[in-house]
């Protein structure tokens, strides 16, 4: 079976031996798991031995695109990397937008599997079917933007797409990201550290081909239809106008915006870092990922003050939350500067913000003092200190060395594990679970730790008067459904921004027009369920179960002190029980033999467990 929409080849690069091979894309796996995230979960479970050291040579970086990348499909621009996370020890994946994904397809590949460890810094150069490893000694230590520029200059082509790590990845910060196109990244879970551990500085790609689609006429008509839907949709329009910070007011207004290390869910100074203020003060233009009619990337410029001249794409909503509200920082310019430091050193802005807020709480509680911080006054709200701390973390200098290990490890070392707002070692996203119960359950059961895009239920939970967000009824079912839906969207590799305006139907229709396969919504949701179970199985093999599906005690025991969600906490256990039940998992959160058999995963599990 040759699936349309696919490039047909997977590139496998072993950095230890230097061998580069091209394998036929496993069509049946793509047909079974759609692409990207789904196929990645399958391959990681199959190819990685249990208990592989995340920072050892045996870990893999499995980059995968989806079948719709490189076609006419709107918003088809995500590429996924799947790996065992050095931050959490769990299965993890992260998605990157920009222009890398279509370039990989145009070069003739559906994915790139990186294995082993080079004995000196190298970068991978994919020039259509000519693929080589090149010396990167001269690039080691360079910041991400400089690395991109240097590679483009060296290869004499300005249009080459580059994904690279910065000094944070080289120094194995556990939340180092992989940066691409300047401001797009494989953000969460520490893929940058895995790349650093492999001595792989960058991947550079040039593609001049194309992929064939099954039904061009249908694809064209659907694409036009989707443009129309997106142009009319209010949420998509807000995003187009304001970028992702359009969510600041709504989230803060309902009091579920993590503030001051999640000690509360409402930031009184939120209006200083909301979208309207950004638009007025710092936005100077828009940047789009490939094929996207929304163009949510906003370019920001600091015009005056100590950070004058700083220019970034962003800040995104999550960065605004975690480096802003969660650090109590309402200084827009400091926020932009902090984001820039993360981007050029290659740190996940989300984890970085969470770690900084932990440091601030420790400082205010006297757990760390001015002596430990080289004189930094790390009080909540001190933007200048935030910027200085970011630099320290990015370079692993002084106290930065401790915090580069992530919130969980740092807090444990400081003897205050309860102050790290994390699940399985992955720091919280910006949503405050006490103010939005479904998000709490979503963080808890997420296979990659507290990640907001595993089950982003905030939309339905805050619809209407917003009071649904406090209810427990139906939350397990909502989380389950959303989880399957996202597994499908991520596997299609459509940008999740499409999800606000498009139903699953339109997205699946695009997939069918491209691949020529027949898939309906029920079929797609079943695939979503299979992917969810695969991810669970990987973690189970590593020893994760119910005991790891928990939120920090602050969420469970301390009532939210201020804001519109005042007085609330999360009653997790009943939600967990219900969720496991619905999933067909046992009381410990392990998929039952029965359920696995029904899903057709029993044999695979026997093989790999």
């Amino acid at each position, binding site marked *: 079976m040759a699936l349309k929409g696919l490039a047909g080849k997977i590139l496998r690069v072993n950095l230890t031996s230097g061998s580069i091979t091209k394998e036929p894309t496993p069509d049946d796996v793509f047909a079974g798991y759609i692409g990207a995230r789904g196929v990645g979960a399958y391959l990681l479970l199959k190819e990685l031995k249990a208990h592989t050291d995340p920072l050892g040579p045996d870990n893999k970086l499995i980059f995968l695109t989806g079948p719709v990348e490189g076609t006419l499909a*709107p918003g088809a621009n995500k590429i996924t990397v799947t790996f065992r996370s050095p931050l959490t020890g769990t299965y993890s994946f992260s998605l990157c937008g920009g222009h890398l994904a279509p370039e990989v397809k145009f070069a003739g590949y559906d994915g790139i599997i990186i294995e082993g460890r080079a004995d000196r810094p190298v970068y991978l150069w994919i020039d259509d079917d000519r693929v080589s490893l090149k010396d990167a000694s001269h690039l080691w230590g360079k910041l991400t933007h400089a690395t991109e520029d240097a590679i483009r200059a060296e290869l004499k082509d300005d249009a080459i797409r580059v994904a690279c790590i910065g000094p944070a990845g080289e120094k194995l910060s556990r939340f180092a990201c992989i940066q691409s196109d300047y401001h797009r990244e494989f953000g969460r879970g520490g893929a940058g550290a895995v790349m650093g551990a492999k001595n792989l500085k960058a991947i550079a790609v040039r593609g001049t081909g*194309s992929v064939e689609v099954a039904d061009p006429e249908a694809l064209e008509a659907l694409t036009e239809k989707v443009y129309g839907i997106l142009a009319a949709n209010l949420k998509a329009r807000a995003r187009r106008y304001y970028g992702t910070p359009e969510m600041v007011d709504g989230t803060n207004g309902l009091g579920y915006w993590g503030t001051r290390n999640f000690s509360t869910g409402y930031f009184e100074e939120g209006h200083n870092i909301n979208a309207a203020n950004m638009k007025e003060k710092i936005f100077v233009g*828009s940047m*789009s990922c490939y094929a996207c009619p929304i163009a949510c990337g906003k370019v920001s410029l600091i015009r005056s003050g100590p950070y004058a001249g700083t*220019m970034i794409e962003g800040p995104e909503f999550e960065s605004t939350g975690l480096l802003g509200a969660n650090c109590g920082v309402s200084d827009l310019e400091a926020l932009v500067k902090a984001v820039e430091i993360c981007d050029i050193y290659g740190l996940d802005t989300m984890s970085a913000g969470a770690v900084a807020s932990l440091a601030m709480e420790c400082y205010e509680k006297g757990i760390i003092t001015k002596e430990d911080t080289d004189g930094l006054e790390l009080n909540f709200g001190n933007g200048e200190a935030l910027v200085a701390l970011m630099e320290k973390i990015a370079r692993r200098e002084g106290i930065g060395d401790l915090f580069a290990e992530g919130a969980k490890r740092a807090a444990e070392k400081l003897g205050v594990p309860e102050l790290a707002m994390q699940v399985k070692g992955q720091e919280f996203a910006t949503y405050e679970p006490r103010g939005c119960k479904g998000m709490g359950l979503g963080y808890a059961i997420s296979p990659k730790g507290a990640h907001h895009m595993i089950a982003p239920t905030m939309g339905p939970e805050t619809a209407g008067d917003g009071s649904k967000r406090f209810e427990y009824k139906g939350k397990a079912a909502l989380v389950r459904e959303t989880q399957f839906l996202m597994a499908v969207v991520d596997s299609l590799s459509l940008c999740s921004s499409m999800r606000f305006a498009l139903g699953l139907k339109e997205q699946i229709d695009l997939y069918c027009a491209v691949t020529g396969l027949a898939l309906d919504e029920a079929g797609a949701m079943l695939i979503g369920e299979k992917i969810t179970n695969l991810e669970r199985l990987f973690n189970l093999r590593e020893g994760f179960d119910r005991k790891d599906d928990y939120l920090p005690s602050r969420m469970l025991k301390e009532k939210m002190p201020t804001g519109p969600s005042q007085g609330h906490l999360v009653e997790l256990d009943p939600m967990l029980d219900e969720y496991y039940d619905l999933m067909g998992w046992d009381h410990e959160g392990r998929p039952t033999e029965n359920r696995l058999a029904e899903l057709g995963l029993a044999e695979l599990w026997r093989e790999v467990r």
Partner: protein
Amino acid sequence: MNVLVTYPERCVGCRICEQWCSWKHEGQVNPTKSRIRVHRVHSKYLNIPVTCMQCAKSPCIAACREGALRKDSATGAVIVDEEKCIGCRRCVRACPYGAVAIDKDKRIVLICDLCGGEPQCVAHCREGAIEYVSLALADRGHRAAYVETVVATMAAETKDGIKATGEGGCQ
């Protein structure tokens, strides 16, 4: 007769124009087979759509020794005679805008043909970064943009008290 006008300052770099160009002409999405290309200047956060500007004195036509290029009298587009083009790329170098590309499979050049008068890039650009307007009026948008800058500058100057003329200036 209409011509293409580009507004790089509006372009966000989505490359939807490229997609539709190669899709309509070649039946596939391929960035190297598009007659419009969006070049990103990363360090300056700029996206510049590059395509044929329908110059009055086409340097490409003048450079072609094979007589493979001519101007369509109805649309003003430069038409490539696929039989005559030998793919020597002289026109590529002659074009002051870098708007001529080469088709690596057919080994002949690709130049915007205005889609016979209904340019698909214009039809699909949501940002209004490419317009298709009458030659006589092609300056208007740019003039309006320039005037806006002048107005803004004047307003700023007034605010700063450097120059106070007009309404507020005669007290």
